[in-house]
């Protein structure tokens, strides 16, 4: 128990350390980009955030599938944590993108497929978090948010392609510049930094979710809560 309880904190610490190292490299050591200058350095957090946002939501989707198949509470805890992390990272992604776009494109927002899809994801998964907040029964909350998560996740590629299609009929996209090798290392270090950070945070958040559910369920119910008539729902440990 001791070992598992300190593991997420170790992940968070390691992630923060990597993030600091990568950001130092990106901000101080790597050369500035020829055309955009220092504005381009936001890429060192932006691109890793994008990868990790997608990864966190994929993790939430896998948790949703696992919950529906196993009915084990640990998957619901992880689903809640992973989805929150995915929404936060997507929101950060939109903000970083806007900060970058204003000096570069002259506008805060552009109807680029990736940008629009990220915004749609924020609302789709944020809506599921709202659903969780308004359902009091833990069993219903878990099942419904799993179902909604699966539907929303399947929808993401359709949104992406429809926006891409919609937009390509309006204007040609400015292509993303290929990344030169001088920029690789800080990108990679930051990507792993954010990865470890969110895995650690998801571990901690899942534990909070488990504790909260233990508080919600009256003690005599914990053993007999398998009202679903399927496999019994197992205890609250992460």
């Amino acid at each position: 128990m001791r070992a598992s309880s300190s593991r997420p904190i170790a992940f968070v610490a390691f992630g923060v350390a990597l993030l600091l190292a990568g950001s130092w490299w990106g901000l101080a050591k790597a050369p500035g980009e020829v055309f955009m200058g220092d504005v381009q350095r936001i890429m060192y957090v932006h691109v890793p955030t994008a990868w990790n946002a997608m990864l966190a939501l994929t993790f939430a989707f896998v948790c949703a599938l696992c919950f529906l198949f196993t009915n084990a509470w640990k998957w619901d805890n992880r689903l809640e944590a992973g989805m929150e992390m995915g929404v936060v990272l997507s929101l950060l992604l939109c903000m970083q993108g806007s900060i970058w776009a204003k000096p570069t494109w002259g506008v805060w927002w552009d109807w680029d497929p990736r940008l629009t899809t990220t915004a749609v994801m924020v609302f789709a998964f944020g809506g599921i978090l709202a659903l969780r907040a308004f359902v009091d029964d833990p069993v219903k909350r878990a099942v419904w948010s799993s179902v909604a998560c699966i539907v929303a996740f399947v929808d993401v590629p359709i949104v992406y392609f429809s926006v891409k299609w919609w937009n390509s009929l309006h204007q040609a996209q400015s292509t993303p510049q290929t990344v030169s090798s001088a920029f690789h290392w800080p990108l990679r270090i930051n990507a792993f930094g954010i990865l470890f950070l969110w895995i650690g945070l998801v571990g901690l958040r899942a534990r909070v979710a488990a504790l909260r559910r233990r508080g919600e369920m009256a003690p005599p119910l914990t053993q007999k809560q398998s009202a679903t008539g399927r496999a019994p729902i197992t205890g609250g440990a992460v």
Partner: protein
Amino acid sequence: MNALFAAFRKDLLLQWRGRAQMVAIFAFGAAALLLFSFAIGPDSSALREHAAGFLWLGLLLASTLSLAESFECEMEEQALEGLLLLPASTRALYYGKAIANWAQLALLGMALVPVMVVLYDAGTLRLLSLLAVILLGTAGLSAPGTLYAAMTSQTRARQTLLPLLLFPLVVPVLLAAVKATSLVILGDPMEQYRPWITLLGAFAVIHWSIGGLLFGRVVED
């Protein structure tokens, strides 16, 4: 199949008995179309250009009312639990209700078209193409809408939650249906109508399949 038909018949009957509600929802959609024109101003060419977008926004807003209503009545007197006790699969219940909702939304869409034509001067003679867009677009709205209405009707804050969950999900429907309707109204020199219709069809097929797979878990637990 019999169960599906019975469920569909039951939901159609419910809608018919509550037809005052349908008229009110239509009035809501028409009022929304009227209000949208105030956002643009009395520039008739701009209104005509945006007519398709307004039609689908009005239909989308009105659809949350009718979708929510379709499950609200199942919550009264615990009707849903009675339905689940019947020897019918939940899948049949889902498809029965989703098809009934589809029929209602398609009817609503067709009823809003004349309003659009009158208000925005957006007439067209390609009625079959327009009908295809409305049928496929409302199919894409009703499948996820029925699934989500089943959840949100049982929650607190249900009026907020259904649109919050549904709107981001149906972005592709909105995009494709607006585009296709626009092409029908304003002319289609580049032959772009077919890809948008295909997108609408693909969206509908995907969501009708997932809805049928997942609905059982939503109502049983």
